[in-house]
């Protein structure tokens, strides 16, 4: 695969948490690529570093996380560079407080990447949403931060559009002639209306007639003339005007617009009565609805990569099915890549294109889904698959022993203390990653020519 196809490129990433009881080696040389438009499943048991990996890509690490080596390129931007440089500078005297300063600078540098190019969905929908903010605001906030111009354009377009405009647009829609519609919108200078039109037109749960009525009613929504220059400024520059009172008024108008857009988007995600939902607080929603809100927040700016950190683990089976359905639809409709982190192998089989198996802070096996599941190479993957219970019962086998203590990680291959095929070399040297065909890679001495073949 050629290089420009990957959105994330991770090379030899080594990350440790500095704690009062010692250095916890969370990631020990991770190599991984996420291609544009693919779903990469990342599997592993607790403590294997899969969540840390997701957080590293987002630059959302805690202050005691030291990047000892490696790079994480997100669309050409090396996220961990300042942290790595700080670690090198500190020369063994790593100070979390100093690292925190570096992280604060990183937050600033990444402001235009997070929520725009890359976004993240966390495991617990209850704790991911701010309990004291209406959910609509939490969605709208992303737009207010990054896409003020879209909101302003939407608002201005609604003020400018006449009923005749909307009828014309409907005509194009009925004829499925999107190009002409866009031309018309451009010629009438109604940019921003298409966003709203399409939000209704693509809804599946509405009758065509209802869609048409709603689209027709998008016109003639007059805007306070005092605000007009402020809104035009925002639409032009993607910034709020700086004059103090005007700024507040424009912001207020755009927050309202943000709620509107949030409701439209939730509607697209199949949320019943989205106009009511946006005004509610998280505790008034069920787990499934909350996770929909979180997904909407992550997706509303059309990011190129979405990191899903166990998005369904806290949900019931039937609700999990709803969310998976939703993600499947989103995958078809957008061009985004997904990094789907989960401990549930069967789930990853359902959603991923490629799978990466992690153990003790390393990717031990990665490759196309079918290849990894049907012909697992690494002993850990093989044993893990045997431990998964299925509807058709088979003999279960657990993996003996405990996950290694990453404060004192074993030498050589991390898995050797639990591995039935362990050889002398496994205790000595870390295995290299070898390609066993068609992008299926495995880090194990069994395949690296270190001992007799299996």
């Amino acid at each position, binding site marked *: 695969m050629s290089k420009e196809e990957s959105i994330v490129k991770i090379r030899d990433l080594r990350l440790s948490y500095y704690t009062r009881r010692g250095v916890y080696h969370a990631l020990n040389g991770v190599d991984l690529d996420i291609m544009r438009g693919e779903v990469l499943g990342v599997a592993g048991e607790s403590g294997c570093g899969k969540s840390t990996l997701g957080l590293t890509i987002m630059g959302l690490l805690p202050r005691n996380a030291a990047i000892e080596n490696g790079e994480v390129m997100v669309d050409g931007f090396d996220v961990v560079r300042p942290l790595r440089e700080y670690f090198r500078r500190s020369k063994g005297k790593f100070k979390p407080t100093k690292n925190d300063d570096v992280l604060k600078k990183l937050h600033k540098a990444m402001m235009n990447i997070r929520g725009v190019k890359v976004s993240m969905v966390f495991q617990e929908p209850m704790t991911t949403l701010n309990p004291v903010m209406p959910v609509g605001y939490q969605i709208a906030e992303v737009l207010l931060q990054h896409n003020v111009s879209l909101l302003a354009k939407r608002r201005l377009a609604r003020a400018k559009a006449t009923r005749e405009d909307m009828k014309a647009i409907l005509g194009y829609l009925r004829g499925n002639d999107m190009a002409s519609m866009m031309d018309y919108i451009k010629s009438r200078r109604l940019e921003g209306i298409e966003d709203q039109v399409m939000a209704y037109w693509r809804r599946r749960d509405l009758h065509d*007639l209802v869609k048409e*009525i709603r689209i027709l009613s998008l016109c003639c929504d007059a805007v306070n003339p005092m605000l007009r220059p402020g809104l035009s400024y925002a639409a032009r520059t993607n910034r709020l005007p700086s004059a103090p009172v005007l700024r507040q008024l424009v912001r207020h108008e755009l927050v309202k617009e943000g709620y509107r857009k949030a409701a439209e988007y939730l509607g697209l995600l199949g949320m019943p009565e989205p106009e009511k939902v946006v005004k509610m607080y998280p505790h008034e929603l069920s787990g499934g609805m909350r996770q929909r809100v979180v997904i909407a927040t992550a997706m509303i700016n059309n990011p190129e990569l979405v990191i899903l950190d166990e998005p369904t683990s806290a949900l019931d089976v039937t609700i999990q099915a709803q969310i998976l359905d939703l993600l499947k639809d989103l995958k078809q409709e957008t061009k985004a890549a997904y990094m789907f982190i989960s401990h549930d192998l*069967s789930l990853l*089989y359902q959603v991923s294109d490629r799978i990466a198996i992690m153990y003790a802070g390393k990717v031990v096996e990665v490759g196309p889904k079918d290849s990894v599941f049907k012909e697992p190479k690494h002993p850990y993957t093989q044993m893990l698959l045997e431990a998964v*219970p299925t509807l058709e019962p088979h003999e279960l*086998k*657990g*993996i003996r022993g405990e996950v290694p203590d990453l404060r004192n990680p074993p030498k050589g291959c991390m898995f050797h203390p639990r591995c039935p095929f362990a050889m002398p070399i496994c205790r000595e040297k870390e295995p290299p990653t070898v390609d066993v065909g068609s992008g299926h890679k495995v880090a194990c001495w069994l395949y690296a020519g270190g001992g007799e073949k299996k």
Partner: protein
Amino acid sequence: MIIAGRHLKEYFPVKGVRGAYVRAVDDVSIDVHEGEIVGLVGESGSGKSTLGRLLVRLLDPTAGDVLFNIPDSELREYDDALERNDKQMVKKISSKYSILRLKGSRLKMFRREVGIVFQDPYSSLDPRMSIADIIAEPMIETGLYKRAEALERAEELLEEVQLPRDFAYRYPHELSGGQRQRVAIARGIATNPKFVVLDEPTSALDVSVQAEILVLLRELREKHNMAMLFITHNISVVSYMADRIYVMYAGKLLEYGPKTQVIRSPRHPYTQALISAVPEVGREMRRVVLKGDVPNLVMPPAGCRFHPRCPVAVAECGWDSGEVSEAINRLIEARYAELSGKLSVKPKGPLALEVRGISAQQLKQIVDAESESTKALKAIYSIKDAGDHVEVSLAAPREPRLVPVGPGHAAACILLEGKEGK
């Protein structure tokens, strides 16, 4: 029968609201035979954990009875008596086997015969007690052994759950999650009980550890021939563990039967959806995606509690006028926009509606056309003109009974009742 729950109800009062109850378990009967593993499956809020606690009397039921160690013949008599409403007989058998009136030393004897293992291995072990003391507690408290003997036996039990003996004098926080759960199991089986409730014992653990624990539990069952109630939300785990399966939803029992029957040919639409939603390696899913959420248990839906989400619901499933009027309103908004604003729907009592702004015929057409997509409309059985408005009346809801659908296999769905009746 080692344990038999009969018509168990557990209503928890809602704090601050008089007369409001969370109906966590509502009229559930369950049987566990000697030495068998019964799987109890349900989503969160289905009442499965509450039921488990009722069976070992960690909770006292609002109504119903739990009979312990009752010979099958007497249980049959008891059931007959219940059906005949023969109170004297019921009372007589109940006084012999019920666990609800046990007190003092007899209660302790019962405690010796049952055990329980909880979900969270972190909060279920007292952090200030050593592992040996934790395991010894049930033996000492039920008077099985004196302290010294109990500690001795605790070490043996550690070996039995495949932990080293010298763990006995460690403290819970020094152990990993899987090791703690083994300790919890050792405590659960310490008194050699005949019946153990396992309340999601592996859902906080990793798959590799889960597999080991499940294998261990099966071994223990073989060795001691104890009956187990295995509570979980994970159907694959139940399918590995259980001999028979019970499926609960919103406080009700929807289906039970032998494992292979329930997994391979589930009869209740909920069980079918649940099983279809289980992801598996090597099998592309064909899920039945249920709409909506688990119902609120303070005011659960009438009739069958599953009906608002049911993909095959029919007229008598329990629709009330509120649900139907909401469905009509939503339908008008979604599909018949030309009527919106003109039409008004008002519930009139639980089973009647008053619709204005539309003729009876028109409404009939709409209902006929849409009843497949909007199940609530199926409940409408008559639409009559009444002067200035249209009277709509609904079919009376029927509470589904558990109907036998195979040997030892029953499901509570009125669709099945119909077939059986004809």
